């Protein structure tokens, strides 16, 4: 129950297996040749230096026992120099591993972001924003620790173990065998826990993603929450998720803490075995005290990489889940029409909707629509709420593709025309104008970064929008806040209009462009529009009649069907849906 959404999301965005994701990640890492070879060089240097130092210690101690000052100085100096070497190699390792890790993370984030620009619009209806953000930012972050610290450390640990076992075998074959007795036990123990560890980490990741999702939703809906005074309910909900996360983490921690303690005990067994076996060897005159000391250090040092390896495994699990989640976004198929749509868009004569039907799932939102719009024609689409007007504009914008039928641009199917190219012909004024944080200018320039502020000022003047923005403290330079929250809806619409007009497009799609603008300002806009619209094609969606003066032809939609078509006078005189809609708005309300 708690993770219903999460499971649904995981189904919707398929996830690669951790090992697959890891393989891909390694490819990304090794594609940075210079950094990765520096890193490998540094890691190996560190490993070798780290393995040699117990040996120099052994020789120093042997020289103490044998009373040789000169050797003591030499080996003590080597002992120190090995640390100096480690200082330099570790420094290189730190820097190159960070460069690699951060470059990989950066590129993952940018690729995910890029793909988000091209996934089908329906994608955003299925995935919660908070979860999506969490995938790109938080999941990327889990990789940082893993790639910067754990992975190089383990590579170095494994190298240390290999080099030190070779050295040990070289100096004392039998004692080495004794020293290695505990290794299989250690490995077996570690491997037996893996499945559980993985499950634990999946659980903690999901529970933290649920927290992020919930927070995001609450932050976005905070005005609604306040309006309805449901702060307490929301707190309770959040507390539930917070608790689940706590429990999941503690459960995961129990296992890893038990593991850590067990490792210590196994380590102690190893040291004790070496000491006893070493004593027997010494008795037989087979080893020196110094070598025995070195062996004890080696055995202890085996365990550091193994403990790290187990930590790595945890971190590997959580990072790979994270990476797989980012790859899930990167791999999500782009809107099918963008893939093989390469035809350049060139609008010469007409756009035609031929037998177009569309459904969001169950029922048809549009049924068998046939409309032909000539270049330069101005058409209006009217109808009740839910009649399918906005769906129609979404189809023309190519946000969705028709379930049946086709949309043709000069006879060419829209599916085969480059989406980017096609949308350059069009400028929409969408029903819900989205605003970015920044100034009014920034928001208008968004659609045409090449335009100047003077051009915007000119447009504002031309459409008499100065009045609409008169209460802004800094004029059009005023910061409008996130999503333009510091503005009124009408002002946001005015920006949306400017944003479309500054593109000077061939086709203008206006979806209820002035629904929140007062009639007086609206009239001023309309008065200037006819001039602006010359030679442009207009598709106007509205259930207000103040703008229909601009159009040549009106199409009336009702429940997904075209029910009437004609010019204003024809439709008004026929006793249909249009007439009805008109009389409600301008007729006498006594009639109801």
């Amino acid at each position, binding site marked *: 129950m708690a993770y219903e959404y999460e499971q649904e999301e995981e189904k919707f965005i398929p996830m690669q297996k951790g090992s697959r994701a890891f393989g891909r990640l390694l490819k990304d890492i090794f594609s940075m040749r210079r950094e990765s070879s520096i890193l490998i060089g540094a890691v190996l240097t560190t490993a070798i230096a780290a393995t040699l130092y117990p040996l120099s210690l052994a020789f120093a101690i042997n020289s103490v026992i044998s009373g040789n000052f000169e050797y003591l100085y030499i080996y003590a100096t080597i002992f120190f120099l090995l640390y100096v070497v480690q200082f330099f190699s570790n420094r290189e390792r730190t820097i190159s591993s960070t*460069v690699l890790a951060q470059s990989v993370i950066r590129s993952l984030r940018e690729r995910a972001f890029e793909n988000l620009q091209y996934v089908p619009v329906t994608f955003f209806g299925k995935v919660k*924003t908070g979860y999506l953000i969490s995938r790109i930012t938080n999941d990327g972050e889990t990789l940082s620790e893993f790639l910067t610290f754990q992975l190089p450390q383990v590579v170095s640990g494994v190298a240390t173990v290999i080099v030190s076992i070779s050295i040990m075998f070289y100096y004392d074959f039998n004692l080495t065998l004794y020293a290695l007795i505990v290794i299989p036990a250690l490995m077996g123990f570690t491997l037996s826990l893996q499945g559980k560890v993985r499950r634990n980490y999946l659980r903690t990741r999901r529970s933290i993603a649920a927290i992020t999702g919930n927070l995001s939703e609450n932050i976005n*809906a905070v005005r609604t929450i306040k309006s309805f005074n449901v702060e307490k309910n929301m707190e309770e909900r959040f507390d539930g998720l917070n608790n689940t996360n706590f429990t999941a983490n503690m459960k995961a921690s129990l296992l890893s803490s038990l593991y850590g303690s067990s490792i210590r005990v196994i380590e102690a067994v190893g040291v004790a075995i070496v000491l006893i076996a070493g004593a027997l060897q010494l008795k037989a005159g087979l080893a020196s005290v110094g070598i*025995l000391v070195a062996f004890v250090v080696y055995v202890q040092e085996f365990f550091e990489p193994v403990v790290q390896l187990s930590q790595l495994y945890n971190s590997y699990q959580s990072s790979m889940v994270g990476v797989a989640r980012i790859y899930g976004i990167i791999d999500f198929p782009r809107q099918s029409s963008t893939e093989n749509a390469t035809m350049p868009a060139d609008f010469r004569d007409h756009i035609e909707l031929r037998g177009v039907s569309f459904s969001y799932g169950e029922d048809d939102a549009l049924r068998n629509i046939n409309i032909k719009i000539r270049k330069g024609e101005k058409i209006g689409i009217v109808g009740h*709420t*839910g009649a399918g007007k906005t769906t129609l504009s979404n189809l023309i914008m190519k946000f969705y593709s028709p379930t049946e039928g086709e949309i043709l641009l000069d006879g060419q199917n829209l599916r085969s025309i480059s989406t980017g190219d096609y949308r350059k012909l069009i400028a929409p004024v969408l029903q819900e104008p989205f605003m970015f944080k920044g100034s009014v200018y920034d928001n208008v320039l968004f659609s045409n970064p090449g335009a100047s502020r003077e051009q915007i000022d000119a447009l504002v003047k031309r459409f008499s929008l100065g009045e609409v923005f008169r209460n802004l403290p800094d004029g059009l330079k005023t910061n409008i806040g996130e999503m333009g929250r510091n503005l009124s809806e009408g002002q946001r619409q005015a920006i949306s209009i400017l944003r479309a007009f500054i593109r000077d497009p061939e086709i203008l799609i206006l979806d209820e462009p002035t629904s929140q603008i007062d009639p007086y300002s609206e009239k001023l806009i309309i008065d200037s529009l006819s001039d602006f619209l010359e030679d442009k094609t207009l598709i106007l969606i509205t259930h207000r009649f103040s703008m229909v003066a601009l159009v040549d032809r009106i199409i009336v939609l009702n429940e997904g069907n075209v029910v009437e078509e004609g010019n204003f006078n024809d439709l008004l005189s026929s006793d249909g849906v249009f007439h009805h809609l008109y009389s409600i708005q301008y007729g006498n*309300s006594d009639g109801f």
Partner: protein
Amino acid sequence: MADLSGDSKGMGKVFAVFGPLAFGLRYLLDRKWILAIVVISSVVSTLFRLLVPIYIGDAVTAIQKIQYSDVEYYSLLIFAVSSISGVVQFVVNYGSQYISQSYAYNLRKDVFSHLIRKKFSFFEEQTSGDLLSRSTMDIEASRNFILNTSSQLIPTLFLIIFAFVFLFTINPYFAGIFTIAVPILIYIGIVFQRKQRTHWRRIRTYYGQMNEQLQENIVGNRVVRGFSAEVQEMAKFSGTTGSYYDEYIIVARLRGKYNNLMPLVVSAAATGILLYGGYTDIIGATVVGPLVAAVNIFSLISFPVSFLGRLIVFSENARAGISRIQTVLDSDKDEDLELGEKKRVGGNLKFDHISFKREGFEILKDISFEVKAGEFVGLTGRTAAGKSTLVNLIPRFYDPVSGTISIGGTNVSKVSLALLRNSVAFVPQEINLISGTIRQNIAFGSSKGDLETIKWAARIARISDFIEALPDAYETMVGERGITLSGGQRQRVAIARALLTKPEILILDDATSSVDPETELEIFRGIRENLSGTTVITVTHRESALRFSDRVLSLNDGVLTEETPVQHIPVVPDKFRDEEGEADA
């Protein structure tokens, strides 16, 4: 907060690394005992751990003296103390995790309750993406430090202290050599910490910015696509990830240098002891056991010491995070929902000489008016005239600069916000649906969540036909922000939600703009018939809506005037004005 600044002089610098801890303790007050147990356990664990090299030294001495039974004895002892240390270490690890998770749990809870009680004005300055990163990753950064403090930093400090004591018992001169190393370690630590501070602050800020841009891009995806601004957006995002990357690399360079200096200092001390100890052992022809033990102690502490540098990194990261969280925790922008009289207010609404300013700009000028209980009032006026501001003052989303608003004779500032907002239902311009079923969305603000009442509200809001035609009817899931519903449908769900609370005053802030006029009038009539006692204020530009209203108030340039509906001349396209009469006929 002074203890967090870390800029205090002298010893303060040494303890600056603990700064975030002082903050953390506030959320661990109920975990004092566990904290104590963890600290004691880490003392025990490190003590026993350090006994291992001592016994190794003894074993080596025994081997050198050819007393083999002692070797077995010491081997057993090593096994025993290691095991004890291991078992106690479990308490340290698990306890640390418990502490850090409790901290995160409590802090998150606190952050959430502050966040949800912030005034509207707070959200005008902040962005939701950034707030999200404050309440997730910034908390995580500080939790990570708490975890590592308790599982690594405290044991390491004890390890250093005990190492010193043990070295002293082995040979006071050994301890002397070690004493030189400690201040150098501390000095390196302080310099390291100082140098990276500003960078962590920037890293956390860029991280917030990344969240912010993602949020905007995702929510505004249609606008981005509609204007084919994808490439532009990618460049913007890439700018932020680039700055984030650059800061990380600067920190990595610092870490590469300072962090690795620390084990180098420790090894220099070990070399010193090896040379001095070796020299005296040869001169005195004594056993090498103590020397072996001393050098072994160093190899034992060398790894934890190298970890100290990372702890400093964690500490700085946490400090930067905490100062960002503090923005949410500062309560000067919090609302107290319970403060004030606990009564539901109803009756007539009165504005008495209300003025309101924003950033020095006077939006409402000395507004006075009265609305009788049960009246249906249309509020109109030019775009940005202050209509929304005016209605936002009623449930006290903002407070006026001067003047009083009263409902049923009670000053709204005297009533608890919880009850005021229970009596006043506000349907905002921007509709947020929560993810869940339609039923949950309608029942959002009310405990009266039974299906019959929900259906009743949906019927009045003229959305019941639509809902009931859906295969899952009221149990249909709506996506986040109600993406699968049209603008008009979403508005009607929001209206149903408001009706369910059976409010004394219903405010529709342009809440029917995406609903066609016919449906809008049906909704109004439904409200009239079913909630006759409810006062309705609707902000609108629509002719038909104004004509339906009992009274029309018009707000222009911050000044309110009363109009009669008749005065409104329908805006009819000029070129069809001739046919107007015909249309009416």
